[in-house]
């Protein structure tokens, strides 16, 4: 088997995951897209392990580790999503703007900082 086939499938799967992470609004769908990207990584690891005939099977063992870490990640991600849902009643990632700074607030703060700078003796 040519190595190009698994590598191209993995690249396409990864790009689909990138699209999902950027375009989806529901946090759980974002998590699913991350899983797709991790699946692409696993496919690459397995294919290159078979190609290079590693005696320690580093690629396949690392693929198993990636699968285990993905399971841990999805557990924690869902716990965080449930916590966000409990406090905000939504897991829409576009609606979670608590870290967003309004333009008006920003201008007021800059004005204040400017006046403080002027008042400081040099």
């Amino acid at each position, binding site marked *: 088997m040519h190595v190009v086939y698994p590598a191209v499938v993995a690249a396409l799967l990864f790009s689909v995951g990138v699209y999902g992470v950027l375009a989806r*609004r529901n946090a759980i*769908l974002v998590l699913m897209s991350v899983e797709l990207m991790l699946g692409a990584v696993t496919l690459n690891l397995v294919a290159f392990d*078979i190609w290079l005939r590693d005696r320690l099977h580093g690629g396949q063992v690392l693929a198993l580790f990636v*699968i285990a870490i993905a399971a841990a990640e999805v557990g924690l991600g869902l716990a965080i999503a*449930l916590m966000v849902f409990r406090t905000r009643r939504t897991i829409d990632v576009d609606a979670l703007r608590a870290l967003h700074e309004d333009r008006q607030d920003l201008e007021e703060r800059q004005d204040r900082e400017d006046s403080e700078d002027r008042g400081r003796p040099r």
Partner: protein
Amino acid sequence: MTAQEVVFVLLGAVTVGAAVLVVTTRRLVHAALWLVVSFGALAGSFLVLTAEFVAWVQVLIYVGAVVVLLLFGIMLTRAPIGRSDALDSGNRWAALAVAAATAGVLVTVVVRGFKDAYVPLHAGAGTAGELGRSVFRGWVPAFELLSLLLLAALVGAIVLSRTDIANGTAGDPARREGSGG
């Protein structure tokens, strides 16, 4: 094209096609079910690549555990079960451009880099016995570290999702934010 390559390309087409449906479908539950199809086909590609053990682990953990967990998440967050048009965010076209650029760059680089690489497949390179021997000979520290990580993730998930033990330390989030919540 050998028979193995034909089977692999078909499985790859199913994987990528189901993945596209996961990220474009308008029904949340269908996305989880298409994820099952995608990961099942991915496990089939692992079988074609003679990585049996990874394939069965993929089926057990992804199809068995992760998708069920995701379905639980969908149900618990009271997501719209039926058709819903609000699943895509406003920057869909930017996302499409970024994804197309990623795909273009990656596919070009990969095709140019591995044009001539060929691997003859022999059965038995990824059986449970082979992998078990290498995990418990060469990768013991990483394996133990991974079990610690899993334990930490388990404890973290329990702490995050229980409401009655967070009150003493961090304060009740609902009370702290006022009645707006």
